[in-house]
């Protein structure tokens, strides 16, 4: 559990805002991801939570090398991914795979399930000999709990949960070490979410996988993640084990987020304080100075407008938290 296989340092992605028809002028930057650092250990699940537009999916695309970062580094097993040649990057892709959010658009409707799951073998021809591929695809179908007989069916003949299993089988085909899950269950029914999450859980044990699990559903992340990172407006604001984040959150944003989780017990609900945030998330094109959360924070003081807080361990926060006034406050259990 201790060896780091993926090391992300100060990852930045700015999307230019362009104007003009023929000669485009850059008039601004959308700061989608603005200095995110994280480590992924072998066999662990790192959950990333945050509300819509905070840069979670951009982070996933950067990790998958589908977008080129503006700055920062991604090191896989000690080697800088961004400085590799095209051929080495292709090889590397075998080890980092992606499960996408929407199972209805992530599978090519004109390919059979066998072709979809077999495609990784066609791209990386050395992964399996040609005659062996069909059997391997059927094995994969079996692994993710689908009937191997259905190899000639098309994606539209499956339900959402089954399609997500096909997506997982495709990600598993090349026996990767890391799977980036970009909201893999948010498009599914709640009952099916649990099945898919249990499947991911079981696969992690069987194949010793590491997950980066991106979601906006706090309870989903708590269920599956060993460590959790909370993102706000392109920055990581708090990072810790799931117990640290859920039981002893120190960043005001995390506290506000957790206080919004519904409590099933009606008597406990009466004692619960809900922290209501004022206003909207500021535009990532023009984020606030200093701490990005200060415009909605009840603790904000002058220092927050001038000095951006670092994601660090402080006297009152035993795990990294990017707040000048970080302090433990259990919002889930007590009022």
């Amino acid at each position: 559990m201790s060896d780091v296989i993926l090391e992300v340092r100060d990852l930045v992605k700015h999307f230019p805002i362009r104007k003009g028809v023929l000669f485009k002028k850059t008039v601004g930057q959308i700061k989608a991801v603005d200095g995110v650092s994280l480590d992924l250990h072998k066999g662990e699940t790192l959950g990333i939570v945050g509300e819509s537009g905070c840069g979670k999916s951009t982070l996933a695309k950067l990790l998958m090398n589908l977008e080129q970062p503006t700055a920062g580094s991604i090191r896989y097993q000690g080697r800088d991914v961004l400085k590799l040649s095209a051929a080495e990057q292709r090889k590397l892709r075998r080890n980092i795979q992606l499960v996408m959010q929407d199972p209805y658009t992530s599978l090519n409707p004109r390919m059979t399930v066998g072709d979809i799951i077999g495609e990784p073998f066609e791209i990386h021809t050395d992964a399996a000999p040609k005659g062996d591929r069909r059997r391997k695809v059927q094995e994969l179908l079996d692994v993710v709990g689908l009937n191997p007989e259905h190899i000639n069916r098309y994606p539209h003949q499956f339900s959402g949960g089954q399609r997500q299993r096909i997506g997982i089988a495709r990600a598993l085909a090349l026996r990767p070490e890391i799977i980036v899950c970009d909201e893999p269950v948010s498009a599914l029914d709640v009952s099916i979410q649990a099945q898919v999450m249990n499947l991911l859980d079981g696969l992690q044990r069987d194949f010793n996988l590491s997950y980066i699990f991106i979601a906006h559903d706090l309870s989903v992340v708590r269920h599956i993640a060993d460590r959790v990172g909370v993102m706000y407006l392109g920055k990581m604001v708090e990072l810790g084990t799931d117990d640290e984040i859920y039981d002893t959150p120190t960043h005001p944003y995390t506290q506000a987020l957790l206080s919004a989780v519904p409590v099933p017990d009606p008597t406990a609900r009466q004692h619960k304080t809900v922290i209501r945030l004022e206003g909207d998330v500021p535009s990532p094109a023009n984020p606030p100075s200093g701490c990005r959360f200060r415009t909605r924070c009840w603790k904000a003081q002058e220092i927050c407008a001038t000095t951006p807080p670092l994601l660090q361990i402080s006297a009152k926060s035993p795990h990294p938290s990017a707040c000048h006034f970080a302090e433990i406050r259990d919002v889930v259990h007590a009022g």
Partner: protein
Amino acid sequence: MSSPEVATATSPTEPTAVPATPAAAEVAPRKEKNRGLWSDAWYELRRKPLFVISAILITIFVLMAAFPQLFSSVDPTVQDLHKSLEKPDFGAWFKFGEQGQFGYNVLGQDIYARVIYGARASIVVGVFAVLGNMLLGGFFGIVSGYLGGWTDTLLARFGDIFLGLPFVLGALVILSTFASVQSDPSAFRITSLVILTFIVLGWPSFARIMRASVLSTKQLDYVHAAQALGARPGRIVFRHVLPNAMAPMVVVGTITLGAYIGAEATLSFLGVGLRPPVVSWGIMIGESRNFMEPAPYIMAFPAAFLVVAVLSFVMLGDAVRDALDPKLR
């Protein structure tokens, strides 16, 4: 996998291992074969009456175009003024070796023979013009849609030059330049000129259709998924983008095919397109204009053939498009 069996199999429930239906077990030997999009489409097409009918009709028309002697033993250019404007002889229908089934035109030429021999020019022009447009327009559409940026801008402006020319005016200019009205070009030369004219004036609209559908297809999740797997651009274009972006162009192509057979008739009528001694349905319809009242059959028979031919190509296009889309099965 027959269609009713597919219908029963399309209601999967979530629980992990769905047991194979009895029907699926029956056809198990078939299912063992690894099938792809095209073999599935072919399997599907053979069961479609629409496809079968249009395929039979098109085969007949193609045979007619290739071997007109099979259908008529009469020379379509022979004139016999004694027979000028003779009415159709319905008694001669379905009897091989007879003449005058469809009557005679003002020059006393056998209309049945001319309709048969006319198929070649009309079908060759229509089919090759559409194929050329699809290849050229499709290629530039994929290039500009997939690459985007400057390539896209340049190609779009370049195509606009051709789109800016009104079709008939453009065709008149091109054809009268390369084959003036007084000249007497060979049948091959004038036919290929007409086809080239249609391609030159038509490819930008095909390119636009292709570009639009490539643009919308290339940002779909499964394209990103293929990129994430490390697929090269060739694979992404041919396996993922093209099959999912082709349908609009195929449909427009089959519709345009009919329009081109009609346009060929228009140009022949204006005197710049195909011209006698080449026989085409367009020329025949053009010739009939002065005899609409005394001899409507001079127009009716070539027009009927034209309509049936165009219709069968449109139906074929529809059937192929549906078969290539598994969702519609």
